[in-house]
């Protein structure tokens, strides 16, 4: 039951993008097309899960025993950066169109607060390794859910007769706000 609550919490109640406001940069940057959003979701899922597990291992096996907890942030960033590099290299080879459409946002996962936030939260909440894996995966799913929903809306908005001054990021931010408002309905589902 605990695991289920963890999943619901990470996907809906404390959705990384819409409730915690983490990872806004790729949320706005790669949500113009559904296919790109799906690709980004995959990349984030991979990086987030592996990075969280690696961070957990580093934290519990190295930092804590050697009393080096103050190195938490820098070592996590190191882990995430190498993960992202790996994904980037792989994508460039395996799916060039996706690589091109993700553009600058792929390397930007490196400094993505959602991924770092996930690693930090895992440590902060003192999750076990299994909990960490589930939480990271669910958080990535939540990120993906909001990204996919949002890209669906933006594809339709691209066809709308939006006033010139609101086109692009402006209207996207307003829409994200309303989406976030509606996600507040999930508040209280997990106490």
């Amino acid at each position, binding site marked *: 039951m605990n695991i289920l609550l963890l999943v619901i919490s990470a996907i809906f109640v404390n959705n990384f993008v819409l409730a915690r406001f983490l990872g806004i940069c790729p949320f706005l940057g790669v949500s113009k097309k559904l296919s790109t959003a799906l690709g980004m979701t995959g990349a984030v899922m991979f990086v987030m899960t592996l990075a969280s597990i690696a961070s957990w291992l580093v934290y519990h096996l190295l930092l804590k025993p050697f009393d080096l907890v103050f190195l938490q942030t820098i070592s996590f960033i190191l882990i995430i950066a190498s993960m992202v590099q790996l994904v980037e290299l792989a994508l460039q080879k395996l799916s060039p169109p996706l690589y091109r459409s993700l553009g600058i946002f792929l390397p930007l996962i490196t400094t993505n607060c959602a991924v770092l936030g996930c690693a930090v939260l895992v440590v902060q909440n003192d999750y076990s390794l299994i909990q960490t894996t589930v939480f990271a995966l669910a958080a990535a799913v939540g990120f993906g859910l909001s990204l996919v929903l949002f890209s669906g809306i933006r594809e339709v908005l691209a066809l709308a007769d*939006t006033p010139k001054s*609101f086109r692009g990021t402006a209207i996207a931010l307003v829409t994200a706000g309303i989406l976030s408002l509606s996600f507040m*309905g999930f508040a209280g589902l997990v106490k």
Partner: protein
Amino acid sequence: MDDKSTITPRDLIVSASPHIHSGQDVRSIMRHVVYALIPALLIGFWVFGLSAVKVLVLAVVGCLAVEWGCNKLLNRESSLLDFSAIVTGVLLAMNLPSGSPWWLVLVGAIVAIGLGKAIYGGLGYNPFNPALVARVFLLISFPVQMTTWSIPGVDAETGATPLGAVKEAVSLGKTVMDVDLATTKDLLIGTVGGSFGEVSALALLLGGLWLLYKGIIKWQIPIAFIATTLFITGIAWLIDPAHYVSPVFHLFSGGLMIGAWFMATDMVTTPVTQKGMLFFGIGCGVLTAVIRLWGGYPEGVSFAILLMNATTPLIDRYTKPKVFGEA
């Protein structure tokens, strides 16, 4: 034979086919929606008195004024006559407590028309139902004012909605039996606390059925919405009647009726395919039931519809009808 000469080609209209039209237009659709809301409005006036009238007038005038202002600011043709701002105004008013202060209503109007509709390019392009955007916005920004419900008949007193009373009791560890539940008759007629337009289930049902009869809304969304809510709340009630109220209570209380018949059927923000409408209705029902049963808010209809509005593009994408002759 002289008539032959009256034809001057330059006066002839040329357009692409078809050359005839069914005669239905946006204005008449919107007008019918307003007509369908009249019974519920009258009950609201009767139950809550003059303050409800005040809220309605403020909301409608406010919405029209904001629409006019946005048209001017954005340099667009006037869209006041398409009645859509009036519908938004009426629905917004019906979703507010009858004792709402004037500024709350006006903020609602600005959010609904300005943020919910105009900046997307006006009617037809808004992804979210404008009235619901405003309601949820107000609910989160001004929780106190938005949950100060007048008790019918007693002007000065305030209390909880039927659903709110249940949620509070259960969260305090009591059982449903300890709560003085509103009777089904009260819920049907509307002599209970709540937003001024949502209290009378019967009047709303009447309006909804009339819209259905007129062919303005399609059956899929309201029926799927209501049935799904009934189904899930019903299962919960069967399992644990001490902590969950009966599905009938859920059916007639809160915003389910106005939501299912009038808000979830808003054409602009819901799927265009019939299969999609079915999914939309089911999704609304599931979310409503989940929020009502386990969420922090006593009422989930507005959130459910807004959330499903967000999924509309995806639903449309994956429920396209089969092209004729395609295997």
